[in-house]
């Protein structure tokens, strides 16, 4: 008995040493107290090698938890990640309001032009309202093209388009097999849907679909490759309700940008999509729109004018002008008070442009940082009729293969 006691005590002592060793092996916790919340977080214990996500969201100010959620004190991966919003993407539209929202963040007032979350969730890219309405009308499920369904249900009480709400689209509830197939095969793009299989389509959802260019990186200098995760990937065959992928293997920007059947001018592939297409066009203007045509409005004449009109401009006199805020996020051009920038027909400023003293314009590519100068159409040998301003008319002379 005494021997048994001695052995057991010795075994217990061994286990105490084992306990000490187990404790010794735990990683040393790395604390971070972000100035925005004042609450300590320990995410950096394991994730210290992640790059800063952007200059506008430094980790010392924001921390990790304010955007991602998660258990800030936990040092065990399963517990720490269990209450994260949206998995590794807190900008997924199902959780974006909690992650990116807030009056001082991205769901502020419309007057300050800070209502990004409301704009994006009601935008045509998010709702797919036009595509769904068109297919349902074509196959007899609705009597006209007024949109009824969207990718998720959304409502807008202050609508200027007359569309107050959309219900969530459930293809399984549709009777027509073509509409069901459309729902299964054709709604895998843009910000509200998970992408198709394949490297060419790889992207995130939500805000990150456009703004996230690499692992844990956000930017406003969005290159065309982001847009091409959905755009220019091929064509839909409505008879079989399938997507026919483009088969070329492009090796240059020219060949990569648009798929082989497209027509485009030089600036349409030298610039990035964001150099022409404005925030309202891509992110929405806050209202529910029936289709793409009602929100997309930028044309060649927006920058170049017509034979009769110069492009619209605005001289910057207010230091609080939104142009300075937008330029600050991606300062490709050093705008100052007194500079004149091009504005679109809807009043959106093109903050990467500036009028030069001789009346021509300079521009810097938002993603490429390339410098361009261009002149307005007025006074040139352009043969375009004033009432034929769609891009296909410009392409008649200026398309690349011509």
């Amino acid at each position, binding site marked *: 008995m005494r021997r048994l*006691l001695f052995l057991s*005590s010795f*075994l*217990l002592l061994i*286990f105490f040493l084992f*306990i000490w060793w187990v404790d010794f092996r735990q990683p040393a916790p790395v604390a971070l107290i972000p100035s925005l919340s004042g609450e300590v977080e320990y995410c950096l214990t394991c994730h210290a090698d992640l790059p800063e996500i952007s200059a506008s969201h430094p980790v010392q100010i924001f921390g990790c938890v304010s955007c991602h959620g998660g258990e800030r004190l936990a040092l*065990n991966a399963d517990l720490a990640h269990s209450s994260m919003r949206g998995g590794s993407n807190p900008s997924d539209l199902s959780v974006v309001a909690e992650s990116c929202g807030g009056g001082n963040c991205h769901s502020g007032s419309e007057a300050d032009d800070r209502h990004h979350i409301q704009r994006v969730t009601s935008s045509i890219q998010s709702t797919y309202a036009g595509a769904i309405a068109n297919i349902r009308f074509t196959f007899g499920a609705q009597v006209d093209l007024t949109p009824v369904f969207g990718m998720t249900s959304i409502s807008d009480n202050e609508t200027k388009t007359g569309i107050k709400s959309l219900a969530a689209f459930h293809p399984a509830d549709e009777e027509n097999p073509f509409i069901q197939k459309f729902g299964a095969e054709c709604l895998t793009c843009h910000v509200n849907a998970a992408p198709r299989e394949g490297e060419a389509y790889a992207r995130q959802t939500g805000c990150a679909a456009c703004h996230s260019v690499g692992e844990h990186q956000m930017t406003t200098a969005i290159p065309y490759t982001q847009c091409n995760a959905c755009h220019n990937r091929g064509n839909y065959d409505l008879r079989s309700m399938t997507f026919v992928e483009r088969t070329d293997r492009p090796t240059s920007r020219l060949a990569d940008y648009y798929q082989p059947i497209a027509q485009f001018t030089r600036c349409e592939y030298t610039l990035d999509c964001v150099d022409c297409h404005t925030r309202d066009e891509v992110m929405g203007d806050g209202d529910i729109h029936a289709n793409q045509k009602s929100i997309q409005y930028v044309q060649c004449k927006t920058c170049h004018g017509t034979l009769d009109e110069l492009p619209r401009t605005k001289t910057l006199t207010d230091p609080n002008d939104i142009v300075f805020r937008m330029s600050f996020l991606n300062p490709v051009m050093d705008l100052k008070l007194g500079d004149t920038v091009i504005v679109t027909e809807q009043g959106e400023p093109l903050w990467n442009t500036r009028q030069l003293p001789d009346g021509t314009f300079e521009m810097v590519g938002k993603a490429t940082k390339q410098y361009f100068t261009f002149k307005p159409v007025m006074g040139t040998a352009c043969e375009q009729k004033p009432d034929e301003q769609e891009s296909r008319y410009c392409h008649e002379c200026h398309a690349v293969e011509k």
Partner: protein
Amino acid sequence: MRPSFFHHLHPPTIPAAQARWRHTLGAGGTAVFLMLILGVTGILEMFYYLPNPEDAALSVQRITYHVPFGWLIRNLHYWSAQMLILVSALHLLRVIFTAAYTSPRRFNYLLGMGLFLLAILLDFTGYILRWDKSICYPLLTGTNLLKTIPLIGDALFVIATGGGEVCSNALIRFYTWHIFGLTIVAVILMAWHAFRVRRDGGIAVPPPDSRADTARISRNELVRREALAMLIVSIFLILLSIFFPAPIAPAMSASANASVTESAYARAPWFFLWIQQMLKWGDPFTFGILIPLAAFVFVALIPYLFPHIQKNEIGAWFPKSNRMAQIAIIICLACVLVLTFINR
């Protein structure tokens, strides 16, 4: 030589046959040891635990991840508590299977049932103190079950939870019950139960003239065996604590769209799974209160329902003269186990 305090708690000698491991399984003594560990680890946790709804779950995370060896203390506390239920059940089974509950030990048996009930309530209240997502369902279910009791249900609910919104007021109540209200009663009953064991003549044995083996062991030898048992239980608890961490879930969500009882966590604690299974069958009062209470009362009344035992079979395992009691408890145990395991 005059015995030390600890030695003097034991009788000078006890019959050798009843002092063997395989006779008593050491279950009662192990239960006392586990209560001791629970007390010490519990007090250590009190230095860091914050009993208010905003901080409780985070303080548990702090203990687990940031207090030196906090993980060990918490895991020891958790595993001692679960082992206590199992060991107490084992002790109950042993007492019935050896007919050790017969007169004059019938009152001590009732004290033991009281302790068993207290152990379960302490386990439940301790579990609630985590105040994370996994406790909301059991908390709401358990406290709402109280309300189903006719006449006294609402009063019982207020006594247990403090009334009002359960998920905000109940914490301080459960904390007080856990560290003080139930514990004081448990300590008193433990002392009384141990006193009665000695006063009733120690481990149940046949009368001297019916004993086959008259050998005895000294109190020193008994204490040595108890020390060995404590060492082995400690090693076992440490192994459990190192390799099987106590469950922990994210703190209760403050966001408006989080449902209070998230379906992933809609599961009773393991010792109430049998009741949760019955609740799926119908009326909460009948299946959640009445039947479990009836089962408990039945087991508590076994000494009065099946009091007969032949003198020379007292303390022997599975005595023939007490077969009905053994069958009764096996049926109860089988029911509880089946209900527990079919609960998905």
